[in-house]
């Protein structure tokens, strides 16, 4: 079954991203496809490549990134960051940084910035859409 996930909260402060990640891993282990993970509102902070948690703590950003690069079938899980939510919070990829005259970028390469249409499309294309928020 095709399942998509929406995450509305950032890492470490709320449990939403952790729960969503464990859910995604369990779904893949059961042979389901995670069609897309859409990071919305404060959820965009899950995509910062500058995240450096203590060594004995889970690395939420890298966990998601690893899921994006390899899943059970060798398919990528699409990790999509809402552009409007990201720009408001100072989350930029190289392209958005260039457009806005900012000298750096901080989106992890496993994620990509796109629009809200990607969330709607995920809802249409997937059999299930599960929201994790706070």
């Amino acid at each position, binding site marked *: *079954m095709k*399942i998509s996930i929406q995450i*509305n909260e950032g890492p470490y402060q709320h*449990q*939403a991203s952790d*729960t969503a990640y*464990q*859910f995604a*891993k*369990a*779904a893949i*282990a*059961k042979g*389901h496809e995670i069609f897309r993970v859409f990071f919305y509102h404060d959820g965009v902070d899950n995509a910062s490549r500058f995240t450096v948690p203590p060594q004995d703590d889970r690395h939420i950003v890298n966990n998601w990134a690893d899921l994006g690069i390899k899943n059970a079938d060798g398919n990528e899980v699409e990790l999509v960051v809402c552009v409007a939510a990201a720009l408001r919070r100072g989350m930029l990829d190289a392209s958005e940084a260039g457009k806005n005259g900012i000298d750096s970028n901080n989106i992890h390469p496993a994620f990509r910035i796109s629009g809200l249409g990607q969330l709607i499309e995920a809802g249409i294309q997937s059999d*299930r*859409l*599960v*929201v*994790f*928020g*706070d």
Partner: protein
Amino acid sequence: MLHTINKSSFERNSLQSCLNTIDDTSVILLIEDGVICAANNANSSMLAELATQGRVFALQGDIDARGISSKVADNIKLVDYAGFVDLVVEHGTTVSWV
């Protein structure tokens, strides 16, 4: 439908709002701080009634993390993340009460 509750009923009204609208075929899954609703002393009679019908689930890992495994009310079924996935697959639309 699957309804997920992720907040304690001491903190938010989401469990009560869900119970007020739930239909006869839907099930409830308690996750994150929502598992506190599964503890005996926090149990509402409506939730207990649904539990006797086998329609209330709680995420085992979140129960254990909060140290309330000995307080879980009768008839509430414990599931792991794989069980969470099965509930999503079986029950069509998922409503996340936040």
